């Protein structure tokens, strides 16, 4: 079967040619490639952050806190409802994953039930024998809130990063409650981390001027109040405030926030939407002369006196801002609050010069590897070695073309995978050639030795390639970051080498046979 049908020859040549064409852009700088005429392929293989420099951040959304907040709010809501309908209660509070309450008058159960269901329809009510009622959110509701918290977090993270002007950032969901952020070109992500580390939940709450801050610090606050520390301790100002839990207005009603200056101090100006503006106007009208606290992430930025009703829905937040912190706060307020805190659980950042070093080292080892393997094959197999080397060249090209076209990301371990497949690609040639040698020794004719060599070696080659692919697939599936990059190039390399070592080599040998009609095999 040392004969190729014309269409097969054409196909093999076409694949090789395409391999070379699509690899070419990778050999030039991006600027050079851009200047090429339009019909030329311009895609270059995308480099991983370890090669081009940049940061990789893996964040985890604290989804448990979403549920905790939800239950705390439920307690507040329930308390308001109980007081409003004059129902006596004891031991109201959050216990683990549910809220429990005991009514002094058990006959009022239905009223309470109706009031709460209006607030949250996804609650399961159970009454214990001692009359304690537990309100537990359904599993589906909890799951739904978790999912939407993660989705919302991704959206907010994207907005915040966009606002910083970072280009080409990728933000994607990873697993159940993680967010993966890649920031090419950002080798010191401290600023981004600082921005993402804030929930940025802004509220305006009335200060309870009847309660003492010292008492509050010790944990004694009137019902419906809470004690909040100040953002920073400034001489002459309290270190904390007792404020009403219920927020007058919150940051989600803002339409804009900008850093600006007032009396040469950096401040943040804000603008409410119509609902927020109306609520703010009413609240300030009722409370002229009193203090209200501007609270960010449970810390009081400042607590100014309401001098006059604020009707225009606009205002400024002052505090001891620097120009940077004012502009950061404005950015956070514009982008919106995170539904839950985020924690960085993995950070990897690489500076651009280290990346360049890695590219150089990776390329050098590939080139040296190629030279060694090429020489080895020529020394041990002569002309057939050259055939194998030509196949190896096309293998490299097809592999690079595949990586480019598939949009795979090339990392340093990925380059190691390429170097490794170079060595393994010629293994297939060795298997075939050694088999041919054996057959020649066994006294077979030239043609039948070649034929037997290719046919018999094929099964073995397939076996060894499949086992390597198995390992590659597992690495891709279970591995992370560097392991994945390696698995991609290894697997693609193994597949392309199957093509090049068998078909490209065979085509060369067949052409050589027909052209020169040799009497002996030169191996």
């Amino acid at each position: 079967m040392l004969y190729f049908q014309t269409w097969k020859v054409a196909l093999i040549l076409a694949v090789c040619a395409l391999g070379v064409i699509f690899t070419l852009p990778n050999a030039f700088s991006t600027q050079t490639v851009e200047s090429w005429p339009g019909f030329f392929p311009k895609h270059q293989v995308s480099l991983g952050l370890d090669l081009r420099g940049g940061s990789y951040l893996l964040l985890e959304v604290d989804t448990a806190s979403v549920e905790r907040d939800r239950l705390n709010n439920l307690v507040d809501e329930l308390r308001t409802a109980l007081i409003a309908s004059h129902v006596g209660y004891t031991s109201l509070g959050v216990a683990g994953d549910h809220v429990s309450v005991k009514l002094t008058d058990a006959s009022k159960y239905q009223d309470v039930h109706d009031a709460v269901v209006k607030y949250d329809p996804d609650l399961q009510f159970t009454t214990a024998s001692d009359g304690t009622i537990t309100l537990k959110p359904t599993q589906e509701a909890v799951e739904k809130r978790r999912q939407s918290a993660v989705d919302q977090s991704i959206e907010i993270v994207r907005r915040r990063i966009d606002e910083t002007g970072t280009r080409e950032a990728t933000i994607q969901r990873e697993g159940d409650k993680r967010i993966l952020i890649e920031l090419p070109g950002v080798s010191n992500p401290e600023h981004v981390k600082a921005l993402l580390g804030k929930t940025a939940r802004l509220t305006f709450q009335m200060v309870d001027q009847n309660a003492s801050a010292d008492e509050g610090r010790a944990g004694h606050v009137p019902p419906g109040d809470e004690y909040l520390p100040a953002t920073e301790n400034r001489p002459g100002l309290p270190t904390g405030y007792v404020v009403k839990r219920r927020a007058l207005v919150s940051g989600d009603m803002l339409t804009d926030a900008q850093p600006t200056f007032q009396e040469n101090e950096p401040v943040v100006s804000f603008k409410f939407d119509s609902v927020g503006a109306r609520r703010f106007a009413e609240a300030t009208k009722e409370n002229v002369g009193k203090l209200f606290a501007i609270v960010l992430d449970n810390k009081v930025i400042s607590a100014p006196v309401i001098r006059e009703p604020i009707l225009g829905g606009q205002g400024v937040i002052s505090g001891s801002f620097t120009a940077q912190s004012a502009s950061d706060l404005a950015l956070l307020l514009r982008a919106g609050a995170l539904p839950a805190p985020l924690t960085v659980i993995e950070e990897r950042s690489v500076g651009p010069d280290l990346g360049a070093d890695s590219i150089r080292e990776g390329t050098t080892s590939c080139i040296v590897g190629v030279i060694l393997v090429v020489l080895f094959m020529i020394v041990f197999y002569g002309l057939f070695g050259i055939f194998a080397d030509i196949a190896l060249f096309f293998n490299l090209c097809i592999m690079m073309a595949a990586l480019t076209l598939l949009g795979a990301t090339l990392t340093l371990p990925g380059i190691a995978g390429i170097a490794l497949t170079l060595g393994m690609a010629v293994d297939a040639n060795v298997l075939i050639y050694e088999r041919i040698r054996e057959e020649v020794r066994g006294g077979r004719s030239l043609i039948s030795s070649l034929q037997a060599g290719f046919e018999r070696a094929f099964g073995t080659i397939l076996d060894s390639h499949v086992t390597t692919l198995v390992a590659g697939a597992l690495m891709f599936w279970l591995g992370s970051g560097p392991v994945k990059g390696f698995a991609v190039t290894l697997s693609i390399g193994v597949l392309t080498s199957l093509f090049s070592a068998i078909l490209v080599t065979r085509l060369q040998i067949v052409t050589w046979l027909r052209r020169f009609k040799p009497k002996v095999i030169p191996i």
Partner: protein
Amino acid sequence: MFRPLIVIRRIPNIDFMGLRMFGFAISAVMTIGSIVLFGVNGLNYGIDFSGGIVIEARTPQAADISAMRTKLDSLGIGQVALQGFGGPNDVMIRVQRQPGGDQAQENAVTKVKQALGPDVDYRSTNVVGPTIGAELIRAGTIATILALVAIAIYVWFRFEWQFGIGAMLSTLHDTITTVGLFALLQVEFNLTTLAAILTIAGYSINDTVVIYDRVRETMRRYKTMDFSTLINKSLNETLSRTILTVSTTALAVLSLFFFGGQVLHGFSIAMLWGIVVGTYSSLFIAAPMLYYIRPKGVHGRGGEPAPSPASAHPSPGTKTGAP
């Protein structure tokens, strides 16, 4: 055209089966040694697995490591290891895993960067929280076990189950001794090392498959040959290609070892060892093991004392011993 170099001009006649007890002994020592070393020394886990912080910093002038150490020791972030590497301006800073979860790691990085000031160029920063480290160890272990099982199943389908067991045991031997080597040398064991071990599992099976393939072929051709002789014959016939295929891969890995830089160091050490030990185990473990697990259609008695090289020629006596 010049004549190619032929290493093995004639098929050699090495009595691998006669050496099998020797091979088993060496492998037993290496395997048990590896397990003991792993238990006693443990592995020098990189931060991928242990969690913690590694910062590569480049200072504007030659790095004053002791001054930097004094600065960092006063931060209260526990043990900080500084180490020069590469040029005189390069310092590797390792901070032990911070107690108190993922957020604590991040805070420590900020502290270190503040303490060293703005003149330092941070070439790379790696922070791995305890959550991730534990997950990576678990995923790595699962991947390795699955790889071994998957390969055994594949070999079982392509050959017979006896071959599958032989292949899996020799591959297991290769991976265990690779881990043992890392426990012995205390070279950093990180994610790329793990990738190397999985690759070894895939690659070391290559030689084994080549040899098994030949054993099967010879079994079909010489239905009455003594099994031990048959294995020897197959090993000798494929020896040339075993050596050559290993050499080509070894060349590629050697160039990675010498030119691939710091990051790929552990990877290339593991691969080099894996290639060498994988070849050894194919010849001295995987093939002789078939003698004991005896695939169907095999002749000759099992459990006999190692045959002398003279028995390389089948004798009528062995034929009758067929099960």
